[in-house]
């Protein structure tokens, strides 16, 4: 039982880590809570659903490799475009006004509500599932059961996390992103255009959120409200890992996933959210820097 819970925790933790990471990439450059990120992730899932259901209508086959490639490409680019549009249409004017953080957060709530209900208007409030062929029995590994889909989720999320980490450490654009995260003014002095970096951050972060959206929709249902839970968990994971830290976001996601799953060992599954927020509040009060102990700006905490 314990092994199974740990494994389930690691799988959901991988997804949380991916969401937290994609959120962190954006947070580092703009320094406000991009709450609407959750709905970008939902958009990713819905794009995948749209491609699969159209594919089924046109070719009446499901689960072919080509449909997979098209669906992944569509939802990843779709999410990326939505994320960039949010930045250009809402956040950019706010940046020009030099709006305070809270204004960004509330505008972000507005974007979130708008897109979530747009999804509901188009697809209805009901729960949808992506059909990916027949259900197969899971593998038994070390006393726990894992399905093919779960292995895929685990592998892809670990791969994306590591790839992003390397990108930020090694690539030229990644280094520029770190420079802007540390000090936008100094970065612009050495010829980095912060606006372009912010654009890149929104594109990369949103693409990753879209990827997380597809991964989740393989395992669970899609519904318009799915983004709320995702972004709340993503933000909690980022804060308990250390806000703005990339390894922190990964550790925080994993920690949160495992903690939630161990928590429901003794109590019913409905209490997951309570556990997550209880952990958040404990961290905010006792260790605001998170696991990685990042320095938080004194004026804000």
């Amino acid at each position, binding site marked *: 039982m314990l092994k199974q819970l740990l494994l389930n925790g690691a799988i959901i933790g991988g997804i949380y880590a991916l969401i937290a990471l994609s959120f962190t990439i954006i947070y580092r450059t703009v320094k406000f809570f991009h709450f609407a990120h959750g709905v970008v992730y939902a958009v990713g899932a819905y794009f995948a659903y749209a491609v699969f259901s159209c594919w089924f209508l046109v070719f009446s086959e499901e689960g072919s490799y080509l449909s997979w490639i098209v669906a992944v490409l569509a939802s990843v680019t779709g999410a990326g475009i939505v994320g960039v549009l949010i930045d250009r249409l809402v956040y950019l004017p706010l940046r020009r006004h030099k709006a305070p953080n*809270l204004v960004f*957060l509330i505008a972000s709530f507005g974007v979130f509500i708008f897109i979530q209900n747009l999804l509901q208007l188009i697809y209805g409030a009901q729960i949808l599932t992506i059909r990916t062929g027949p259900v197969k029995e899971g593998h038994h590994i070390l006393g726990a059961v894992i399905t093919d889909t779960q292995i895929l989720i685990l592998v892809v999320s670990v791969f994306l996390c590591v790839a992003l980490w390397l990108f930020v450490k090694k690539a030229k654009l990644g280094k520029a992103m770190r420079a802007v995260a540390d000090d936008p003014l100094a970065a612009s002095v050495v010829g980095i255009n912060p606006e372009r970096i912010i654009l890149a951050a929104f594109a990369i972060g949103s693409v990753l959120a879209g990827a997380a959206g597809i991964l989740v929709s393989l395992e669970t249902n899609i519904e318009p409200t799915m983004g709320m839970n995702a972004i709340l968990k993503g933000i909690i994971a980022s804060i308990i890992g250390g806000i703005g830290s990339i390894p922190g976001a990964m550790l925080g996601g994993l920690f949160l996933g495992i903690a939630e799953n161990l928590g429901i060992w003794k109590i019913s599954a409905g209490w997951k959210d*309570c556990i997550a927020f209880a952990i958040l509040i404990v961290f905010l009060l006792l260790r605001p820097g998170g696991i990685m102990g990042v320095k938080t700006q004194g004026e804000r905490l």
Partner: protein
Amino acid sequence: MEYFVHILVITGIYVILTLSLNLVVGYTGLAAIGHAAFSCVGAYASSLLALNYGVSPWLGLLIGACTAAVLGVVVGAPSLRLKGDYLALATLGLGVIVYSVAKNWMAVTRGPMGLPGIPGFSIFGVQISEVWSYLILVAVFVVLTYMVMRRVVESPFGRILRAIRDDEVAALAMGKNVNKYKMLVFVVGAFFAGMAGSLYAHYITFIDPSSFTVMESISILLMVVFGGMGSLKGSFVGAATLVILPELLRFVGMPSSVAAPLRQMIYGLLLIVLMLKRPQGILGTYRWK
């Protein structure tokens, strides 16, 4: 006609919620986004007392409001140490926690099935059941809330609140116990939100967790911001506009599967436009910091 009066009653309840949140957000500058949690606690406390122990709704209203105020203390003590967007997140978290307790504590709240058959108010042994009488009742509570809020914001206490909002360090330097005042105002806000929740429960006679979601909290915040931060009149304007306006969608014959998301989309768009063009709201005096 009855429907129109019903909308007015609901508007009145939202005016109470908006006034009380405006005291916290607009006058004191605390970004608290979990107001539905307090009205949830107030509603459930007085409904459960009435259903299980036959407690009169009048007493239940008071106890419900006090329970919400106690929750205000419990939540305020740790979270008011946080500032700005972190406070917003912590209070949002409170909203999620209270909602999920209402949804999962089956033994007490019956979870998603909700609590049906909550008794209404009665005066001298006569049950109030007509919408008109509820309109008068809610109007009395709205006037009461407004008078209390006006007293609060015009008193020296209210001046300290605005001082905290405009410059916390300066208020601290003037020897004001900033944390104590923040706590007090948070508790007063929670008390009135609990009262509004209890009024709602006894009026509708049915409650379930879906009336107290995070979205609900954000809607109340929108009413405060739309009407005007730090303006009591603005709270009337904000609540009335945002409750009555979406009802027009129903009048043009839109089915509720379209009207419900459309209403939320309008709310979302309004929040964005307000933040871009007029972050202090229509009659507002205070801008976010």
